[in-house]
């Protein structure tokens, strides 16, 4: 008994617990300020000023919004399925938070003579894990819409589910092409391969484009926000939700945006790699810890750029009609992704066999 207790690396456990709590609180804070950022970006693109009353530049606006959501009355419709109704937002939030487990936030720190990895779990099937968790996100929408016992919500949920399933296919196919190039499913390995400065966006431009479009669809963001289309479905699957349960749905969306930005930066833009600089030689000169801190900063700059891109698209592109959405997914993105896959396979074979034209 007491040997097994000794065998567990308690410090590692503590280290991971700290890292998990940091990652979760950071994603929540980022999601909070995404709401502020979204309103500011929307305002600036429409020649307005945006929130500027609460705190300098409206920076306390998310706190006020959160307080408002907490103070609202919590309504569970009598005709709804209580258990599923409560489960829906919780599931949406859970899946949104779980994805962050395999993202490498930085190389590693050297603290107290320990090698502290800035990744919660370096599983060798990292990408598959992300896919598995992301596809569970559809249950949040589906269960929430169904449990509301409301025609609009059900319609929105069905739409959302079919949309996410259709776009997951193209997303998976675009990732397969990337995996042919990397030869690894581990996100850390993929980032380390890009340390030389050859980001995979250069090798997989078409794959990135497909992945980007599918990421918008997976996050239920405009132009693919059919599941909450306010003008036709009246808020869609979270129509019946109020108070913090609504807040959870909205929050989960923003956490999803954050995480998918992180995944895109990791897969195609070198993750935590500092651009135009050789990180390894920099680490020799300055020591590992400052470089690791800089890498976090560099990663977050990339993530924020992607988040801005998400918002920029949202306030530019109008929503797709449902048939257009399905046509785009099945008739354009999937054939394109297949073509990209075949092309990549061909080029990889050429490269491996040193064939030349």
């Amino acid at each position, binding site marked *: 008994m007491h040997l097994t207790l000794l065998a567990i690396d308690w410090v590692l456990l503590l280290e991971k617990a700290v890292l998990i709590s940091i990652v979760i609180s950071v994603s929540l804070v980022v999601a909070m300020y995404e709401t502020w950022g979204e309103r500011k970006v929307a305002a600036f*693109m429409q*020649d307005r*000023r945006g929130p*500027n009353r609460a705190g300098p530049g409206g920076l306390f606006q998310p706190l006020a919004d959160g307080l408002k959501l907490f103070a609202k009355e919590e309504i569970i419709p009598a005709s709804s399925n209580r258990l599923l109704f409560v489960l829906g937002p919780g599931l949406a939030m859970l899946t949104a938070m779980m994805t962050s487990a395999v993202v490498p936030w930085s190389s590693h720190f050297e603290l107290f003579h320990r090698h502290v990895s800035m990744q919660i779990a370096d599983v060798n099937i990292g990408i598959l894990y992300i896919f598995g968790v992301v596809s569970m996100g559809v249950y949040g929408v589906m269960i929430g819409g169904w449990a509301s016992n409301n025609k609009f919500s059900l319609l929105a949920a069905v739409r959302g589910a079919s949309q996410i399933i259709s776009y997951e296919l193209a997303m998976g196919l675009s990732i397969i092409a990337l995996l042919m190039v990397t030869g690894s499913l581990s996100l850390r390995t993929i980032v380390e391969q890009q340390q030389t400065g050859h980001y995979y966006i250069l090798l997989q431009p078409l794959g990135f484009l497909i992945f980007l479009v599918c990421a918008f669809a997976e996050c239920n963001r405009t132009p693919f926000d059919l599941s909450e289309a306010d003008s036709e479905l009246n808020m869609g699957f979270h129509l019946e939700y109020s108070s913090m349960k609504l807040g959870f749905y909205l929050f989960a969306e923003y956490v999803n945006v954050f995480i998918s930005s992180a995944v895109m930066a990791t897969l195609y833009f070198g993750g935590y790699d500092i651009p135009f600089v050789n990180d390894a030689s920099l680490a020799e000169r300055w020591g590992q810890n400052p470089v690791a801190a800089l890498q976090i900063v560099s990663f977050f700059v990339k993530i924020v750029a992607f988040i801005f891109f998400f918002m*920029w*698209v949202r306030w*530019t592109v109008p929503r797709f009609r449902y048939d257009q959405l399905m046509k785009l997914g099945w008739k*354009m993105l999937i054939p394109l992704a297949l073509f990209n896959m075949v092309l990549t396979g061909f080029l990889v074979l050429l490269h491996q066999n040193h064939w030349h034209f």
Partner: protein
Amino acid sequence: MQPLTSRAKAVDRKPMTMWERMYLPAIAKGMSITFGHMFKKKPTVNYPEKTRPFSPVFRGLHVLNRDEQGRERCTACGLCAVACPAEAITMEGAERLPGEENLYREEKYAAKYEINMLRCIFCGLCEEACPKDAIYLSETFAPANFTRKGFIYGKEELLIPHPVDQPEEFAKARGEHQPTTAD
């Protein structure tokens, strides 16, 4: 059919070309437009902190004027009430008693003077009708109130502060463009 304006355009129902079906060129164009708007000057005026200047002929809430010694100018002649197209003004006259010469300029004064701000259309005809320069439209606008009764302004609300006793409030009530005979 004859088009009604020169701007009429027939609806184009041609199927989209390959270029259009790619969506991306059009999206890129739209995104460059929205990005350009981020750096445009914003027309918003931060209202409570900043206000836009009024035109010199702006007609806001009424004030009842005093002369330079702080005596009320109104003699309750009723010309403003007659001129008022909205019938918003009512008044009751009273005779000045000996010893009240420092309060009222002439022998007759308005004991009661009421303007119903809900009826008033801020046309300024009362201001034009007044032979004693007693009523003016200021630069303040109609504030909110909780009851309809609150919009019937009496002398308490209308009278301009005393120029000698309360010079600061007087200057504030006069506003920038407000012409008064007190100076």
